[in-house]
């Protein structure tokens, strides 16, 4: 629509109304979900893994899947709508390149997708299952918790589905509301036998996804959907692995430990900058990366040094994964703590639509929690 177009409308009573400006819809109004709550900070270009290429998050996923299909002739990718490239474009080009037997749509049935994936893995092939949104993983909960997680244990190690990786878009996206914004990692953290991994960036995503695929245990890989386009980095084109169950200290500090995963890591980086600038407080920022099994050593070592811990996630605070971290840290580091451990998380509500700006654990809430801990 031309910017200067004028359109004459007739109302029900026949009166004329003139609309000028950007098409017949008129000038745009303010919307609550216009601006993102974080800024994505790319990591320095990796030098250890060969040539790199500019990729956003979904392209880094495609790259990992491409590498896998190329090197592992048994690997198959399946789920709803993956054949044409996927609703988030993570599988674009793969069916054309590797064939319809290796990249294919399944019927619309999450319990079937995961059950089928377990079977593929049990038969010795590499299974990469896509669940369209983490919010829809629950029909597959029985297959994940009662079957995948327990396959090796219950069979005395005669059978296992370690070749299974489940991928799902995860986390808030500005307008996703109840069923396109969830972060369900806490449900799965309670399930020995699976691994749960959440990357913060394209470089991390490719390395961690490849590690999940290589890992001999069933893994769930949650992909922060808000970063699919927004996060852009130089990502190695060759395959490389980032180890699981090893948290990463992104910046060192002496006064407060900040722990997060996925999108929230970028919020924490900003909180650290604000704390330094406004309060003169030095924060240590840790990306947990693997939720299960989680790296207790790195987190505890940090809290022993700083004496203060803030954990932040979008998922509701009660029973969220921050509770597990908090409980373990107070057991291991009780005498080192200078203040109660702070959790800045989503409220105990379903994820709301129009109220998202108030719901999310943004940098101001985290900043305020840091301030209270320092002044405790």
């Amino acid at each position, binding site marked *: 629509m031309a910017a200067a177009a004028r359109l004459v409308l007739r109302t029900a009573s026949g009166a004329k109304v003139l609309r000028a400006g950007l098409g017949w819809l008129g000038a745009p109004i303010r919307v609550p979900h216009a601006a993102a709550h974080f800024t994505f900070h790319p990591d320095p270009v990796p030098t250890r893994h060969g040539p790199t290429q500019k990729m956003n998050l979904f392209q880094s996923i495609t790259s990992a899947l491409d590498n896998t299909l190329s090197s592992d002739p048994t690997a198959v990718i399946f789920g709803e709508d993956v054949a044409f490239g996927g609703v988030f474009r993570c599988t674009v080009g793969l069916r054309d390149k590797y064939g319809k037997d290796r990249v294919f749509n399944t019927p619309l049935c999450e319990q079937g997708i995961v059950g089928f994936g377990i079977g593929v893995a049990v038969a010795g092939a590499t299974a990469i299952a896509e669940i369209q949104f983490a919010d829809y993983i629950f029909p597959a909960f029985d297959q994940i918790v009662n079957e995948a997680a327990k*396959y090796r244990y219950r069979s005395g190690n005669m059978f296992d589905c370690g070749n299974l990786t489940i991928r799902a878009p995860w986390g808030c996206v500005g307008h996703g509301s109840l069923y396109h914004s969830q972060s369900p990692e806490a449900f799965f953290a309670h399930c020995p036998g699976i691994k749960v991994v959440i990357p913060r960036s394209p470089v991390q995503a490719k390395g961690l996804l490849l590690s999940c695929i290589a890992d001999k245990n069933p893994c769930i890989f949650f992909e922060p959907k808000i970063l699919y386009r927004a996060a852009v980095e130089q990502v190695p084109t060759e395959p490389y692995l980032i180890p699981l169950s090893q948290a990463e200290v992104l910046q060192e500090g002496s006064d407060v430990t900040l722990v997060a995963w996925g999108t929230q890591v970028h919020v924490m980086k900003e909180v650290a900058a604000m704390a330094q600038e406004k309060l003169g407080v030095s924060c240590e920022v840790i990306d947990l990366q693997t939720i299960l099994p989680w790296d207790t050593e790195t987190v505890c070592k940090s809290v022993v040094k700083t004496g203060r811990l803030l954990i932040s996630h979008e998922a509701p605070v009660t029973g969220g994964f921050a509770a597990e971290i908090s409980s373990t840290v107070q057991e291991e580091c009780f005498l080192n703590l200078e203040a109660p451990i702070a959790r800045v998380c989503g409220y105990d509500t379903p994820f709301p639509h129009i109220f998202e700006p108030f719901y999310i654990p943004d940098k101001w809430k985290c900043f305020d929690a840091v301030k209270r801990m320092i002044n405790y």
Partner: protein
Amino acid sequence: AVCSLSGRLSQQTFDSPSDKPQFPGASAEFVDQLEFIQPNVISGIPVYRVMDRKGQIINPSEDPKLSKETVLKFYQKMTLLNTMDRILYESQRQGRISFYMTNYGEEGTHVGSAAALEPSDLVFGQYREAGVLMYRGFPLDLFMAQCYANADDLGKGRQMPVHYGSKELNFVTISSPLATQIPQAAGAAYAMKTLNSNRAVICYFGEGAASEGDAHAGFNFSATLECPIIFFCRNNGYAISTPTNEQYRGDGIAARGPGYGMMSIRVDGNDVFAVYNATREARRRAVAENQPFLIEAMTYRIGHHSTSDDSSAYRSVDEVNYWDKQDHPISRLRHYMTARGWWAEDEERSWRKQSRQLVMEAFEKAERRLKPRPEWLFTDVYDENPTGLQKQQEALQRHLEQYKEHYPLDLYDK
């Protein structure tokens, strides 16, 4: 619409000029009379059988004409299973094992189908298919070891009795949740197809489990993804206390197959040759044509659901006796054998004695064996033990050193 070789319809192009429906979702004819399709349960899908209830062949061209050796093997495996069931059921009653499920009345479904498969075909079961494992050669010692959860158990003592598994015999370890194996079996079959292995998958389940969402998922996936799989439903009349008229209103499980685009058949599950013929042909075609087959084997659960059930609470003794006495897979096969002079009173007497002896030997040995070492509580959660779990294991170790008299350590291996 055009029928391809496997009977699947292909669509016309959406802009075809003919006056047929052009919808992408279905390609049948138009009709201008309002009429609902009547689900036909009174005269539903017929039951295929080879022998009558007296073990006589009805249509000689359907007799698989198996060798005497094979038929004797069928009989001996079914009766050995029956003997093992009697002894292990009794051992639970006496508190020697914690739980048991018998297979009474369904031995024909196990042996007939197992015999029709290749040894490399992968079996996914529910929990009432011990005869399949027995037919493949799983030793009595290992059945007992699993039920006793002793140190010889291949499953390392982690599961309740009857949750058998054998990697060597391609029998995936049983799990308690019902129907979860159905989509898994479809996935395994798909992998076998892509690996060009010429192997089939067979997936057993009961008519009750067929109500689960996982069953629907498995059937639909196997058809759309063209998997070489046989779905074998043991319709034995009851899911614990729930009779079939409370489980479904349609014409059983076989009638659902066509709804998924799946080849389907209903057989007399107490006729071991009917089961054999249907499974053999289904297996051959599933692998040759990469499509799923559904076999609904009609049978009757003569025993209780498990040792936790007393079925006299919901069915009459007369009903149970009818099936035990008038239509039993073991007696029907015995009639077939005796009619050919392959079996008589003497063989029956001496085999009964021998099979009982074999079972008792394995039983006594399993009873005396120690339980697995307690460290195995912690292994195989992952391929390698994570640090956190190692710490928990060390904590238990220290606890046991201090409080050892309160734990039955003498019953366990070191």
